[in-house]
């Protein structure tokens, strides 16, 4: 504890000198200082290791854009999307749709991967935290768009048809790695980050696209 403070203090003192008293704090040094403070402040707890803060280029670029208050330039955004699209694992058995009932259970659960969860806690999809999905569940979030009638609106009558293929693939890809289609999406990359496995992603695709799912009633 004491030692950590000392480290931070010396860094701070240095920053104070650089920043001076009148001029605006220098951005590069602030990024470095923030990194040092993060290192000194966070520690491993339960299943969450401090190393998860050493994040990938996608997150780094998006965080920097957020701090600057302006979106990524189109070229960088496209490059990030392309990188993420390459990570999408398509269903090995060719089946994009699982069981919508299982999908609903996953959509309801926000559990897993916090430091109070166990390694064997089944992860949820967190979907209702941000999206309206079925009409029956009134406790839904609004950070993401409503997904009610998701398949119906997109004209998916038969998910196995050739006509439905682009929508089915996009839906799979979006859940697997949301950043493949929107570089700085707020949505987690469920498949890519190992939150959900292949069959779980298929269940959620079914919840959204199966004509029998309450989503499309």
């Amino acid at each position, binding site marked *: *504890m*004491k030692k*950590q*403070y000392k480290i931070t*203090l010396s860094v*701070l*003192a240095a*920053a*104070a000198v650089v*920043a*001076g*008293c009148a001029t*605006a*704090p220098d951005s590069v040094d*602030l*990024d470095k*200082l*923030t990194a040092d*403070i*993060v290192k*000194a*402040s*966070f*520690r*491993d*707890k339960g299943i*969450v*290791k401090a190393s*998860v*803060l*050493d*994040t990938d280029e*996608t*997150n780094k670029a998006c*965080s920097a854009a*957020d*701090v600057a208050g302006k979106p990524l330039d189109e070229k960088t955004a496209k490059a990030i999307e392309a990188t993420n699209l390459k990570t999408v694992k398509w269903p090995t058995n060719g089946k994009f749709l699982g069981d919508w009932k299982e999908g609903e259970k996953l959509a309801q659960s926000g559990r897993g*991967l*916090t*430091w*109070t969860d166990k390694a064997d806690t089944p992860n949820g999809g*967190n979907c*209702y*935290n941000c999206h*309206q999905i079925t*009409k029956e569940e*009134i*406790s*839904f*979030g*609004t*950070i993401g768009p*409503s997904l009610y009638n998701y398949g119906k609106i997109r004209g998916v009558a038969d998910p196995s048809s050739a006509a439905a293929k682009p929508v089915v693939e996009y839906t799979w890809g979006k859940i697997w790695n949301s*950043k493949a289609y929107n570089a700085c999406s*707020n949505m*987690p*990359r469920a498949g890519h*980050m*190992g*939150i959900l496995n292949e069959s779980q992603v298929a269940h959620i695709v079914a919840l959204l696209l199966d004509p029998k799912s309450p989503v499309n009633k």
Partner: protein
Amino acid sequence: MKTKNALTWIALGCLVSTAGWAQKSAVQSIEEYRAMLQDGNPADLFEAKGEGLWKQKRGPKNASLEQCDLGKGPGVFKGVFVELPRYFADTKRVQDLESRLLTCMETLQGLNAAEIAKTPFGKGEQNNMTALATWIAAESKDMKFSLPQAHAQEKVFYEVGKRLFFQRAGAHDFSCASCHGQDNTRIRLQDLPNLTKNPGDGVGFAAWPAYRVSNGQMWGMQQRLNDCYRQQRFPYPGFASDATVALGVYLGVNSKGSASVAPAIKR
């Protein structure tokens, strides 16, 4: 102020909701429920305990905290909360209320600050810390936030706090801004204040410490931030660590002019 906020929110809910009137009615019912809880906030119990602890001689030095300097001189407790976190010359650090109380518990009472910081929330001295923070906050109730930004380190901490706020990482790529970066959104049925700007009187930063009915616990700002980070799938932020204090500076400066309602009662 709370009601006004809720009403705006209900109106918006009607516009965007496809679930129509059933949705609106559920939201109204929950507003009624929240209103019912306002009278008789168990935070009062912690407030009373905190006041007693401030005056009580404790620790190896058998001293009270009555000479503690929370930013407006030794012993001044009225109005200090709405100006924290701030820079303290004696420690040469920017400190929030809980960090500063730690300093006073160590220097005045001879208690071990590092030990207290390591103690889990809800255990031992941390319970006393929460009660003290609740009482000090209550002594600034209805006052407007006005964090000092004159010192270079206060400015630096604001900038660091801003970077922490937008830091995306962890299994879910979440940053604070994922949930608190837009207007008029909610997670499940909880409305989410936009903390990149002033979210209004008694909202966000201006509502903590608060009593949480879901677990019957009193939480200070440190525990509030700690649990945000837990749900964000981040690792554990140290109690009164520079990261949590810097984030407090960012949120507090953004809340300039908002009235504090602490101690509040929350879901």
